[in-house]
């Protein structure tokens, strides 16, 4: 701690103009059903990995759409691909394919 007893808080705002939509666009091309998401959180509620870790598919979706890929890469590997989220999704989104597509494009 410096002599002031406090630092300068980092900005927490997300500048969508600066973040690239590139990977999000490629994932949406791979799995267009993701556009139907209403953010209900059913996927997160039923998630096996979410029971054991802080993995949260809805958060993954937010990070993807906002272009925050650095935070995304640490998260996406936690998915065990059990597919329960796909079963409960009221919009019929193929969430497993979304996870696989994100892994593919992040690794490039």
């Amino acid at each position, binding site marked *: 701690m410096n002599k*002031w007893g406090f630092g300068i808080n980092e900005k927490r705002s997300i500048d969508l103009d600066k973040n690239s939509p590139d990977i999000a666009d490629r994932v949406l091309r791979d799995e267009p059903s993701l556009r139907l998401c209403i953010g209900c959180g059913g996927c997160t509620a039923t998630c096996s990995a979410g029971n054991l870790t802080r993995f949260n598919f809805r958060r993954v979706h937010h990070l993807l759409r906002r272009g925050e890929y650095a935070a995304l890469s640490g998260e996406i590997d936690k998915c065990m691909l059990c597919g329960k989220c796909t079963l409960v999704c009221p919009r019929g989104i193929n969430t497993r394919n979304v996870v696989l597509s994100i892994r593919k494009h992040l690794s490039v």
Partner: protein
Amino acid sequence: MRTINNRYSWERYQKQIPDDHFYYARSCIRQNFFPGSEAAFLKIMQDELGLDVLDDAKHTSCTGIGYHADIVPLETIMTVVARQFSLMTEAGYENLVSSCITSFGIYTEILAMWHHFPELEAKIHEHLRKATGREFVKPKNVIHTSDLVFHFRDRIAAKAKYKLYDVINEKPLNVVEHIGCHYSKIFPTNGIGGAEFPYVLAGMIESWGGQVIDYPERRHCCGFGFRNYLVQANRGSSIANSKLKFESMAPYKPDFIVANCPGCSMFLDKWQYTLAEMEGVTYGPDHQAIPVLTYEEMAGLVLGYDPWDLGLQMHQVDAEPLLQKMGIEYDYTKKYLGKNGKYIGSPKPCNCF
């Protein structure tokens, strides 16, 4: 940015500003931060414009800092405010002019609450009666001192000795205006220009020859908000707000900043030093910081008052480069002399770089 369309948006928000007879409610903190500002306001209003402004020794702090820090309960602050109104009534005035943005926000907020909850107002009448034996009448007009300077800006311009003009580079000064959040963000109709396009300071700048900078974070809070800094651990959030503003305004090369809130003027001034110490950055040209003035100091400079009488030597950021740009004649040897001619001490250079 749709500057051209926004330029006139303020005209939808006008407020009634009386022409004379004001009861002056001072700020509890401004006289420490900017000791010449309130004296300059009274000099301008009373001596230059010949207005009736009563500077009453009997009134107190509105206790707004305690209220916003959750130390002073709502009914207590209401009773304190009722006492100010009572003093105003006793002195025969109906127009309250508040020097502080927090107080201005408190007065307007309390009057709005009493309007919507008359039983609360009745209760406060009872509290004041029991505590002091006083009665009060609500003011007809509650205005901020910057409203009054804005109202008379053209009369001040007519008496101007200097313009907000850079005589060295021969161009109007680029000015950042910063409006305190409690001026019009709580009740937009109580501020000139509303919450989004307040014109109160911009009007003064334009009338006195300057050019207003419209930068992206113009309406962002300076970070002063009492909760943001009263606890030391929270000050990281406070300074982050100011930093955001400085970063946003710096590309527009402002010659100075003017604010109408005690806290904003203080924080925008002093945080620049803190940021220079912490990160080694400054936001003005040539590794200089950006001078910060109150609107009374700005008016005082325009009217040709002595900068040291206005208290500019008490600012963290040195205002001398600005004085030189404006072509103001001043005596450097008197910078750190008090009214009695005695040396008041001078700041040591910081080791920021």
